[in-house]
Every structure is written in structure tokens, then in C-alpha cells.
């Protein structure tokens, strides 16, 4: 019996604790994170008591297009699959006309999301493949390591692109400075020759 209680307590602690923040009237507050492509993203949101405002919950993709829009009247869940790597924005918006309350009204919202391996249901996979708790955790770690590996390869690609940009900047600085010096000399010489010709023409020299 005591064991079962402990199990209950700890499973609660193992859950993700949700982030909470305040939103006022006529504003849009967003949280964003860079998420890799082909990832499952799941999460939930809830309005905390006292419920004074009803913001809209909107998810934007890296191109600032709306992926999902949900009303927050009831605590809700969301899930989507990413098709590209980039910054995904999770927003609460009170921009839609609300029944006007006294200015300064704020609403506390609670929000939570997971992506990648953390979003996958390992209880389900364990049941399907008949894995014990130890095997399930090892399987989870295996998938996690694979995900880390993929992320690192992607990071390597981006580092290479940045290196190219840096080398381009480096050579640009040099060549453009040389160009500037050449232009300076050329305009200086042209000025002198032009003025000489001008004064000769006017018979000053």
C-alpha cells in the first residue's frame, strides 16, 4: 500500500511542470523555440483562476504562418508534426475585441509542451513490443542518443555555412578596402589632371 502511494507521488513528479505567465488586454505574448523538422510536438494549455480574459492560443511556424488556432475556454491540448527546422512560436493573443474590462486586467495562463523523444509515448511502445520497465528506459535512451546524433550532424552543417560566411566576410573586408584605396587614388589623380587642364584652358597657368 505504501509502495503504491510512493509510485503515485513520484509519477506526479515525473510529469513536466507547466510554465505560467500573465497576459493583459490587447496584446500577444509568445514563447518560441527552435525545433528540428520531422518532430512530434505535443502540449497543453489552461487558464488559471480567476478567469477574466479569454486569450486565443495560436501556433506559428518559422514562416510566421498559423499552424493551429485554439480557444482557451476549456483546458486544451495540441499536437502537430514539424515539416521544417526553425523557430516555432506558441502565442496567447488577446488582440481580438474582448468585452472591455478595466484596464490593467491580466490573466494567468499555464502552458506546457514537449517535442521529439519526450513527446513520444513510451508506455505505448513498451506495450506493443512487450518491453519491461528496464528495457523501455534503455529503448528511450537509445532513441534519444540517435536524436542527439542527428542534431549534431545538423549543427555541423550549420557551422560549415557559418564558416563560409566568415571567410567571405574576411576576404570582402580586404578586397573592398583595396577598392576604396584605388578609388581614392584614381579620383585624386583625375581631379589633379582635370584642374590642370581647366586652368591651362583658362590661360591661368
Amino acid at each position, binding site marked *: 500500500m505504501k*509502495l503504491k502511494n*510512493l*509510485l503515485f*507521488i*513520484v*509519477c506526479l*513528479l*515525473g510529469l*513536466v*511542470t*507547466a*510554465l*505560467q*505567465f500573465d497576459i493583459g488586454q490587447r496584446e500577444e*505574448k*509568445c*514563447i*518560441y*523555440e*527552435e525545433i528540428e523538422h520531422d518532430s512530434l510536438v505535443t502540449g497543453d494549455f489552461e487558464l488559471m483562476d480567476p478567469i477574466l480574459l479569454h486569450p486565443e492560443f495560436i501556433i506559428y511556424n518559422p514562416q510566421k504562418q498559423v499552424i493551429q488556432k485554439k480557444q482557451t475556454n476549456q483546458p486544451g491540448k495540441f499536437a502537430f508534426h514539424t515539416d521544417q527546422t526553425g*523557430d516555432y512560436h506558441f502565442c496567447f493573443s488577446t488582440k481580438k475585441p474582448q468585452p472591455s474590462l478595466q484596464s490593467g486586467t491580466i490573466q*494567468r495562463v499555464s502552458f506546457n*509542451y*514537449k517535442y521529439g523523444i*519526450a513527446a513520444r509515448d513510451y508506455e505505448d511502445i513498451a506495450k506493443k513490443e512487450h518491453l*519491461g*520497465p*528496464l528495457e*523501455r*528506459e*534503455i529503448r528511450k*535512451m537509445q532513441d*534519444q*542518443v540517435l536524436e*542527439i546524433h542527428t*542534431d*549534431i550532424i545538423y*549543427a555541423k552543417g*550549420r557551422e560549415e555555412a*557559418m564558416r563560409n*560566411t*566568415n571567410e*567571405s*566576410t574576411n576576404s*570582402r*573586408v580586404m578586397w*573592398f578596402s583595396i*577598392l*576604396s584605396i584605388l*578609388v*581614392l587614388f584614381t*579620383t585624386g589623380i*583625375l*581631379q589633379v589632371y*582635370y*584642374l590642370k587642364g*581647366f*586652368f591651362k584652358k*583658362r590661360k*591661368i597657368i
Partner: protein
Amino acid sequence: MKLLVFSLILFSFFVSNINSITITVPPNSKECVFEKIDKRTSVTLLYQVVSGGGMDINPEISEPDGRVVYRRDREQEGKFTFLSRSVGMYKFCFGNEMSHVTSKQVNFNIQLSGGHSNSEIAKKEHLTPLENGVLELQEQLRSILSEQRYLKVREHIHRNTTESTNSRVLWWNFLQTFLLIAISATQIIYVRRIFERRRRI
């Protein structure tokens, strides 16, 4: 059976989520997030300014009773760990009071580990060496993940700076060359005008 249940407990406990989120702090204001934390939990806040103005922010962490645990002025990035003394809503704030025009984007994550039931069930002699090994691996994997997410954000910041430098070099040089030519042409025209005027007089 008892052993299996114990293993289940410990494994489900150490599954914790590390999300690296970015928020926007408008000028002259402070943005706060709240999180409900248990007592005797090790809480780590890791933050870095992604973009905006002088790339500095004023972080502040407060306990549920209002006492400020951590406050810094104009930091670009930082890491702070503390042990929670009570259960309740902890407040994590980022202030952009020093800027009147530019908003700042701050990336941060809050890591929680331990927790007060850890001491109740950390009876390691009930675990086989294999389970112990798996537990250690999990901890290490978590710290790899946390470092990786931190580096991801750093790389993003550096990439922005690099691309900005690259385009600045190009456009400012075009401007410089154009100005050089324009100034020397103006000088010639001006000198001509002076002498033409003298001639007429």
C-alpha cells in the same frame, strides 16, 4: 515484483523535460514566468540574450513568499542554481528597463532535479548494477541534452552576428565608394564655379 516497482518509480522520476524557450521583453518592461516547484528541488536557471540592443538583461528569481533569491544587472548570459526551500510558485523575471527603444529576446531554461521524494526512495541497495548503470546513463544523457540545447542557441546568436557583419561590410563599402566619388566630383565642380565666377567679374 517489489524490485520492478521500485525500478519503475526511479525511472519515471528521472524523466524530466528541459525546454529552452525564448521570450521577447519589450523596452522599459519586465517579463516574468512562474513555475510551481516542490521543496528541496535543485533548480537551475540558464539564460542568454539572443538579440537586441546591448545584449543585456536584468534577471531576477523570487521565492513564493516574495524573497528575491537572485538578481543581476545587465548580464548577457548566466547560470544560477539554488535549492528550493518551500513548495509554491517561483517567479523568474527578465527586465529590460535599461532600454527605451529596443526589445530584447532572452532564451532560458529551467532545470529541476531531485525533489523531496528522492530521499524517500533512494535505496540503492535494492537495485542491480545494471539498473544503477542505466540510471547513471540517464543522468549523463540529460546533461548532454542540456549542453546541446545551450550550444544550439549560442550558435544561433553567432550566426546572426556573422550574417549581419557580412552584409554590413558589403553595404557600407558601397556607400563609402559612392560617397568618395560624389565628394571628389563635388570638389571639382565647386572649384570650377569659383574660377568661372572670378572670370565673369
